[in-house]
């Protein structure tokens, strides 16, 4: 075990902190440029976040984001960029909803089946990209983006009433049918505030599993090693191709879970209005959280806060898209500030090493002279 490194921790926190400050400052500039009060939107959002129902919304959304971001982070640790989380979770949620609605099992089994179907579907969809990458060398960036589009079409086809979809009487929506109550994940009621989806806690617990597997197991070490340098990993006996495929499968499996808080806790069906775009938000969050489970947790909460608390802005004459601008700026600021902090850290390290070497040389000279 290496000992606790204060420098590293400070540098690690400096990146996100710098990014946030820059993003907030730039958003204020945008507000000023459009002739608005540059501070009021923030106070409005913070005031809004004091309400219990908004807090529940933020927490639930953060749980969903957390899963999507973990899925992206698994890929990042392996130097794989899984942009396909979005397609993976939507297809997974749809298949899970289909299977869940067509069977009737005792409670825990029913939920377990739905969750397993979701993970398998997500893993399968990501696995296609994994196989293409390992066998044909197709960049997973390209293939996963394309698979997103294919997933959209596939879902649209599957959900047609002629295939597996159901059009409820009098509705213009298409659904996969309602999952029986045994397949609902118990929620924690907060009174007037609403309900915290039970699966939100599963999501956060998965963060611990992620940390343990990556940092405390042989497999996690291999994964990180392959991500850092494929050739070096291969030289030490790691099958890089197998690692790529495994990482994609895990990433897809976790991505498959991203739709579960909503499916198991709220809608109990997959419909045309099932939330979309979570996979892309997950990329932002994984970046901001530096692929660290705790970092991702805070960034998921931050992005969820921006999403939900900004709804109030409309009522006070501000565009709630201010929050979206801020999210975009955060992404840019994150990349820039991480690079700055990295270079600063590197220079500091070089200086330190240089000083130590100079000190040693001085000592040597003195000894020679003596």
């Amino acid at each position, binding site marked *: 075990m290496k000992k606790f490194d204060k420098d590293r921790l400070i540098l690690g926190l400096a990146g996100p902190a710098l990014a946030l400050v820059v993003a907030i400052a730039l958003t204020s500039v945008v507000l000023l440029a459009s002739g608005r009060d540059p501070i009021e939107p923030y106070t409005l959002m913070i005031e809004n976040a004091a309400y219990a*129902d*908004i807090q529940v*919304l933020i927490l*639930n*959304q953060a749980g969903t984001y957390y899963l999507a971001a973990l899925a992206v982070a698994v890929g990042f640790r392996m*130097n794989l*960029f899984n*942009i396909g989380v979005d397609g993976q979770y*939507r297809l997974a949620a749809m298949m899970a909803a289909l299977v869940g609605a067509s069977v009737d099992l005792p409670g825990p089994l029913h939920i377990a089946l739905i969750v397993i179907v979701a993970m398998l579907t997500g893993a399968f969809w990501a696995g296609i990209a994994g196989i293409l990458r390992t066998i044909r060398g197709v960049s997973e*960036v390209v293939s996963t983006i394309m698979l997103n589009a294919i997933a*959209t*079409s596939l*879902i*649209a*086809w599957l959900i047609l009433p002629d295939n597996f979809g159901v*059009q*409820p*009487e*009098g*509705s*213009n*929506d*298409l659904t996969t049918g309602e999952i029986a109550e045994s397949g609902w994940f118990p929620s924690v009621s907060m009174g007037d505030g*609403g309900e915290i989806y039970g699966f939100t806690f599963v999501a956060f617990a998965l963060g611990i599993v992620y940390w343990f597997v990556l940092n405390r197991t042989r497999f996690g070490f291999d994964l990180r090693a392959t991500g850092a340098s494929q050739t070096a990993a291969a030289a030490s006996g790691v099958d890089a191709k197998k690692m790529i495929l495994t990482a994609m499968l895990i990433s897809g499996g976790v991505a498959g879970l991203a739709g579960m808080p*909503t499916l198991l806790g*709220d*809608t109990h069906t997959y*419909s*045309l*209005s*099932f*939330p*979309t*775009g*979570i996979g*892309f*938000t997950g*990329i*932002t969050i994984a*970046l901001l959280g530096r692929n660290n489970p705790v970092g991702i947790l805070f960034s998921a909460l931050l992005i969820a806060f921006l*999403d*939900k608390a900004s*709804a109030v802005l*409309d*009522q*006070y*004459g501000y*565009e*709630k*898209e201010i929050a*979206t601008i801020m*999210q*975009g700026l955060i*992404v*840019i600021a*994150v*990349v820039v500030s*991480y*690079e700055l902090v990295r270079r600063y850290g590197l220079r500091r390290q070089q200086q330190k090493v240089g000083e130590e070497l100079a000190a040693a040389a001085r000592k040597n000279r003195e000894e020679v002279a003596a």
Partner: protein
Amino acid sequence: MRRVTRIATVAIASTALAFSATACGKTSDSGSDSKEASAAIAYDIGGRGDQSFNDAAYAGLEKAEKDLDIKGNDQEPSEGESDADKVQRLTELARSGNNPVIGVGFAYAPAIKKVAPKFPKTTFGIIDDTSVTGKNIANLVFNEEQGSYLAGVAAAKATKTNKVGFIGGVEVPLIKKFEAGFAQGVKDTNPQVQVLKQYLTQPPNFDGFAKPDLGKAAAEGQLDKGADVVYHAAGLAGSGAIEAAASQGKWAVGVDSDQYKQPGLAKYKDKILTSVTKDVSDSVYNLIKSVKDGKPQSGEVRYGLAEDGVGLSDSNPAYQKMTDLIAAVDKAKADVVAGKIKVRTAP
């Protein structure tokens, strides 16, 4: 440096995605803590400024503000939001005293089902859905297929190549109603006429309602195949279809509101034969008025040809000159209203 470039790719890609997922900014009116009567609408995807569905609802609210002296509130959804967000939005609007609270679009059905029982004194309106019912819920629905049927009759009369085109924005059941009515109208009038149909996108990709370039490309494809009348049910994307048809000197049929009168399409209006109107604004206005009068609407409120809730516009002078066509449309309208013709709601 490989690491850097990779992260940069990630950043650029995700920023681009984040921005592309953003609807353009629109302003909204202020909150409603005051005691005066107020009504609220919550928009569907696209929000205000979509030149179609949501704008029509807003027009109804605006009219109510003017004529009924009430205060109007409107709220926009976020891209890709969940039912929980809609529940929160409706709860907020109901709690702050708005009555009625109207959900624009079927996506609000699950949310209204949850919120309506909690506010028994507030009337909730939902457009395009009858699956949620309750004493304080008014389901505002339209017979889009009937209006589209008339468009089919008109198109079949106007075509010279015996080919007409249908462009649907997003392939959802609602738009299929437009297709079904149109195709039936064409076939009943002239079985020789072939209907080319195309949908722009599949859900959950709703670009097909928003991106004119998609509508333009689809219309050009149909025109190349010989169609000389193109009917679009694609919201804002349909303006591209109108542009394509008009610039080749072919007929376009508009949708939702009388597009001949839309300032944004003034350049092409001579070739906008007619439009299938869907009077969302009136339905919103009527509901607000009924609440104000103390007799709130409840249950299914249907707007069909008989109620002039859907129809065919005739503001184009060129249309008014086609007496043969107008006679056929009028006859078809009378038959539908009388129940002699049953129009299908699914293709």
